[in-house]
């Protein structure tokens, strides 16, 4: 083996491959070996592209309330508006918004809010959890009691207080979501790290006088990934639903610029009355996005897990 390999073995990092084969190429090969994951990736790219390209693709701008005509509300899929200039392929909702356009625009907000808040909550939570488990004692007690308090605080209350103190805005929704979610990650990370901290490789790293943050970041953290990744991918769906609830309360997106989550919640009122499309299509859109993310995420998790057998 190469000298580089020996050196990296000593630090306990995953084995570095011979210089010929770059890590990226191996990674790519592994990823594309799963057809399901590839399918998921394509789906995800399509969703992202549609969301980003909304202003150009969608037949209507549902956020421009002057363009809405209440007489066109609750029209079934396939109907057209009064002068025939617009076909509502997926129907219209209670406010006369074209559902297809609303999904495109809404997906943008939902995905943005979801991704940012989950990523931030993940990083903050994992950091807190790992530090807490590693140092134990008083630090662990303090941090975990903070976690207890945060977990007991209902998201609605957090959001209302944020609204009262900071005012409105999409960024406030993100703060609220991060505040509500980080504690969950912290607890899960700590659970995993508590098992790891007594293992030999951590002792070995400590013997080598590596700084604690390096031990945590490069050694403990990767081994704690599996449960955290599962939670993260599921949490995205949760975050979008949570954002919808908070938007209802007036924190964040204005009611005239609904996110995907809000469209689904709005559609709730129409479920029994037979206007199924108002809730059904946004629900399908959300499910597609979540499925795509999970297909990709599942496979990524399998590949990135240092304990799995890696080729090469």
């Amino acid at each position, binding site marked *: 083996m190469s000298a580089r390999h020996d050196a990296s073995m000593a630090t306990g990092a995953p084995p570095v491959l011979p210089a010929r084969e770059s890590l990226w190429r191996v990674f790519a090969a592994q990823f594309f070996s799963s057809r399901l994951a590839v399918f998921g990736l394509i789906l995800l790219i399509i969703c992202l592209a549609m969301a980003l390209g909304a202003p150009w693709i969608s037949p209507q701008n549902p956020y421009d309330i002057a363009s809405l005509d209440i007489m066109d509300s609750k029209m079934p899929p396939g109907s057209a508006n009064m002068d025939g200039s617009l076909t509502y392929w997926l129907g219209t909702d209670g*406010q006369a918004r074209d559902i297809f356009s609303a999904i495109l625009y809404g997906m943008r907000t939902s995905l943005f809010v979801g991704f940012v808040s989950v990523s931030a909550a993940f990083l903050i939570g994992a950091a807190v959890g790992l530090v807490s488990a590693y140092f134990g004692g008083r630090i662990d007690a303090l941090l975990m009691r903070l976690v207890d308090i945060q977990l007991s605080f209902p998201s609605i209350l957090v959001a*209302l207080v944020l609204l009262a103190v900071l005012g409105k805005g999409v960024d406030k929704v993100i703060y609220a979501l991060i505040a509500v979610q980080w504690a969950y990650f912290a607890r899960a990370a700590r659970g995993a790290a508590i098992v790891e901290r007594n293992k030999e490789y951590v002792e070995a790293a400590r013997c080598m006088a590596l700084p604690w943050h390096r031990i945590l970041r490069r050694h403990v953290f990767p081994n704690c990934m599996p449960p955290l990744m599962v939670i993260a991918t599921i949490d995205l769906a949760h975050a979008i639903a949570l954002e919808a609830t908070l938007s209802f*309360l*007036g924190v964040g997106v204005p*009611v005239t610029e609904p996110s995907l989550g809000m469209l689904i919640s709005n559609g709730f*009122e*129409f479920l*029994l009355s*037979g206007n199924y499309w108002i809730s059904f299509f946004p629900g399908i859109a959300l499910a597609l996005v979540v499925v795509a993310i999970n297909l990709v995420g599942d496979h990524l998790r399998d590949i990135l897990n240092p304990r799995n057998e890696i080729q090469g």
Partner: protein
Amino acid sequence: MKLIRKTMLFSVLAAGLIAAAGPAQARDLIIALRSEPSSMDPQFHSLTPNTQLSETLFDPLVRTDGTAKPVPSLAESWTVDGDVWTFKLRPNVKFSDGTPFTSEDVLFTYDRVPKVPNSPSSYSLYLSTVDKVEAPDAHTVKITTKGPSPVLLANLSMVPIMSKKAASGPAPEGKTTVELNRGDGLVGTGPYKFVSWKRGAEIVFDRNEHYWGDKPDWDKVIYRPISNSAARVAALLAGDVDVIEDPSTDDLPKLKKDKNLHVQETPSFRVIYIALNQGKEPPAGMTAPDGKNPLTDRRVREALSLAIDRQAIVDRIMDGAGMPAANLLAYPAFGASEKYAKVPKADADKAKKLLAEAGYPDGFAMSLGSPDGRYTNDKRIAQVVASMWARIGVKTAVETMAPPVFFKQRNAYAFSSYLAGWAVSSGEMLNPLNSLVVTKDPAQGLGTTNWSKYSNPEMDKLVMQASKTLDDGQRAALLQKAADMAMDDYSILPLQFELSVWAMKKDIRYGGRADQMTLAQYMTLAK
């Protein structure tokens, strides 16, 4: 709840046998409520879910019928002479525990009202014009008011009579609210009597065998609070309940088509309106080209009113459960003139012309605040109004929020305009004018819910005069004049009168009420 089902099954079978014997059925009535009452104490919290139950357990001296007209209840007749009202009490009335009803009970009841501690919304509101109450004999009550009080009867209908014997106790107010909530001391003369209350689950009433009026139809009345309207409708469809309050308006078309159900829509006294900030300085959320507040110009207000297609709102958002409104009460209610009985058709072109005339050919920008979930379809109506205004050039940002936050912000004048509702409990024009349009004067208790800074001293004078006029004819004329003045000025923009909706199994009938109360004693089997 399956126990109830079995009981009902037996009862229905038994009822089939007894059916020919008379109108009273050996059957239970199960009603799904929209909100659970906060208390059984008839004097603790003035809130419709509480009042409608106490009006079934108790009777007031004078009741109001479905259209808010006073009708005799425990008082058979009355006369008024200046400030003195004399009521002749109905003889031979017994409470549900068998004790006879006398004027002592009336004294006790009115005496208790101000003594109820920690009341979040006190009933002393209804006795505010009462100076003293006397009982010259066991069947007469004399009430002296502080000055002429034309609304006394409507107010008294809100304070039902409790039993002095049952509700007395060591505390200053006799039986406390907590004790009454458990049924201790909760004895009335009404058609049903209290059995039990499992919070969040159900409230059970039994037929009152001592009731002085027509024998109540039902063996038991069971109320189940189901706050989620889809779940309420599902419960009716599944046959778990007999009657539901307030189905979601989107379910109406489907419910009306269902052959197993009957839908009752009754015009109510609740008006949904928009208040426009008419202060001199441009309010929050407004960007106007000349730095002035466009809403102070009557033409602008008229334009905004003309832009709103009220019929479309009723048809598309309320699914027909509303009536377009041009006044604060629907004609021919007391104080509503014929002039504003019909709603002018929406006219966006005229609106745009008026805006241009007023100096705003390119429109301006403002905000519209609305609570979310306080009134039926509130945030949906707000959005549609905003889009209608946007189409005549007034760019409107809609700010909807949870009710507590909304009220806080509204009272801080944080919106250029806001949407709200008002229930005219008395059925007369005095109430909405006094609360919504008269100049705000906290010390006098005037304009308490007027957060628009609108002020019209001439109209204020008319309203003040009307509040002191006992003669019905004169008062009605004064109120009509005042209301017309307010509407001519577009001081406030009424949108619609809500229709109260009840849905029930096809063999049950309920006439509905304008005050939106669900009163079990008026529910009968269909003939």
